[in-house]
């Protein structure tokens, strides 16, 4: 086993923190620590220079439109570096606003386009008069089975890539195609928060495994006692999305 501490870069926790992204960081770090691994979280604020070569995983959360626009501005100078890191396999978890930022742009109801990072061939539109897509959500993913949470977004995201999963309950990317999120190289992009990872420990571990492999350290993940996580999944689905129960089992 390597003795090097793993390093997570949390991009702009000061700006993109709308949907409890702290819960995702906490899930990743606790699940490493409970397995005896050292992990450091670098909070990269707008005043810092991100060094994408130094992180084993990067998290980009969600913020309001205004904050998202600020982030797009800060990251514009680092776009090439981030794109190369992603092509090189840097694991990136992007949620809500962070997910939208991966594409070419996010057009808000006023017609204004918030430029994206153009990391992925993807666009997001939000036309005036369209309702926000809000509510509990469940999707079926290849790598982690049923993934559950809450979604709250105005933007409709369109891409030709592989989705994170297929919608069983809720709206997903655009409320039409039945697809949710994106999977590209080691990038996970999704509208699901709640936060995403605490109630989806299989997905959390899939991300951690990818991270360990990218870091070049022993990628064995000892099993954890996930009975509380499983119980939280079961009771939430039973209460709010009973038709998903069968898929959960």
């Amino acid at each position: 086993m390597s003795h090097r501490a793993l390093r997570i870069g949390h991009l702009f926790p000061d700006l993109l923190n709308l949907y409890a992204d702290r819960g995702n960081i906490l899930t990743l770090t606790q699940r490493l620590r409970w397995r005896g691994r050292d992990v450091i979280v670098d909070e990269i604020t707008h005043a810092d220079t991100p060094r994408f070569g130094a992180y084993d995983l990067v998290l980009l959360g969600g913020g309001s439109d205004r904050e998202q626009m600020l982030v797009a501005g800060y990251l514009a100078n680092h776009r090439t570096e981030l794109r190369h890191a992603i092509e090189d396999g840097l694991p990136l978890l992007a949620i809500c606003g962070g997910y939208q930022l991966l594409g070419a742009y996010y057009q808000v109801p006023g017609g204004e386009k918030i430029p994206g990072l153009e990391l992925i061939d993807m666009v997001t539109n939000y036309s005036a008069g369209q309702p926000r897509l809000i509510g509990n959500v469940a999707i079926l993913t290849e790598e982690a089975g049923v993934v559950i949470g809450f979604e709250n977004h105005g933007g409709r995201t369109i891409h030709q890539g592989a989705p994170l999963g297929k919608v069983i309950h809720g709206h997903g990317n655009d409320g039409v195609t039945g697809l949710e999120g994106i999977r590209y190289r080691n990038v996970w992009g999704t509208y699901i928060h709640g936060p995403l990872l605490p109630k989806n420990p299989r997905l959390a571990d899939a991300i951690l495994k990818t991270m360990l492999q990218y870091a070049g350290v022993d990628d064995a993940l000892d099993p954890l006692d996930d009975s509380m996580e499983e119980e939280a999944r079961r009771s939430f689905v039973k209460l709010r999305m009973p038709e998903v129960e069968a898929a959960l089992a």
Partner: protein
Amino acid sequence: MLAIWVGKLVAWLLRLRGHDATSFPGKIALRLSPNLLRRFGRQLRRAIIVTGTNGKTTTTSLLAAMVSQQEPIITNHKGANLIQGIVSALIRESSWTGRLHAKTAVLEVDEATFPLIADSLPVVVIVVTNVFRDQLDRYGELDTTVEKLFSAIRKTEACLVLNGDDPLCRHLGLRASRKTFYYGMDRTTAKTSARKQMRDGQFCLQCGQELSYEGFWYGQLGLYKCPACDFVRPHPEFLGTYRGRTLTFAEDQVPELELTLPVQGLYNAYNVLAAASAARVLGLWADPIHAGLAAYLPPAGRMQSFAVGVPVTLNLIKNPTGCDSVLETVTSDPRRKWVVIGINDLAADGRDVSWLWDADFEQLAEDEYLERIITSGLRAHDMALRLKYAGIQPHQIGVIEEMDDAMDKAIAEATAAQANVYVLSTYTLLHPAVQTLSEKVRSDESQGLAYRTSVS
């Protein structure tokens, strides 16, 4: 007219059957007469509106108690702050011919409802207590809340009473360009916070720079200024100094007032400061302010104490900032304690429970006097998971979905250990908890009496 009759009839029927009539009569009446609020509004001489994220209910009740020392008023008690609640209150205070019994209304209004009703009422004063993150699924996002408040303010000619310690309120005041009064705490009482808590307005809304702080009170309330532009905390017209049980209230050219706080906690000191400031803007002197505070009865579930063999304290939690200040009060109590946390996800609670992960439950993990936590409610398991990841040992966490059973268990264990109990719950679990605990107090009292009689 028909709408008012129906509304009154519905209210009477509801009360007859022991139900709460704070919203439904207005809902029915509005369906019959959508213009009802405007018609009532024309009869009022003035309306004073209290809005903001936290402290609306308490501030409104305090201010209503102060103003009503001088003249009869209409107010919507119990936090029924949507349009149907406001109309219900007006129906309750009207005659069968639709004449209002008072000319002044002191109303608590929900931030999202405010723009819809602002031009129906003769609003003279608007109090904004603060803007925090709350029930995102209803409002979209925090910036939307600020925009809603701004659009409501623009529809009135009212002057503003704002929390100057909140950068989001300050932003409202700067943009609204009208007579604005700020209240704030004395700068020497701000603390340089070490804890990492949720701060909602930490970026300058004028230029986007990160605000720099010399000190904090709680959340984003503090001594802020923008390093890049001229955005800075205003010098408050009304200055509060919080000293535990009292608040010293100061303004230029007028003797200081020593106000007795009817409820504990810094956030309640802010509510008293807001109400007293609004009262001064309305021209009230010291006597009605003191008398209003004395007459005020704390609403249910705001640090409400019950003596059920052991001391039980009940408090509402509904968003990260409010929850953090409640947790601070709980963990600063140096007595062994059991904690019950009830979380529901119904419409009035907010259907999205992700805010639990923004609240600083890590405070509990560091509390050496904490014995055990029982989570309860529809989302009891989500809460339990939050505590596990906060670093609380799984053996200290129990889940009992029925709130009454959870409280029974905690009270029984705490009684055996001579410890005390804190119950924290979201909105829809709060009133049932108040009832259950009140009944326990009553049955304890009657048993206590029987015991004493038999001994003597």
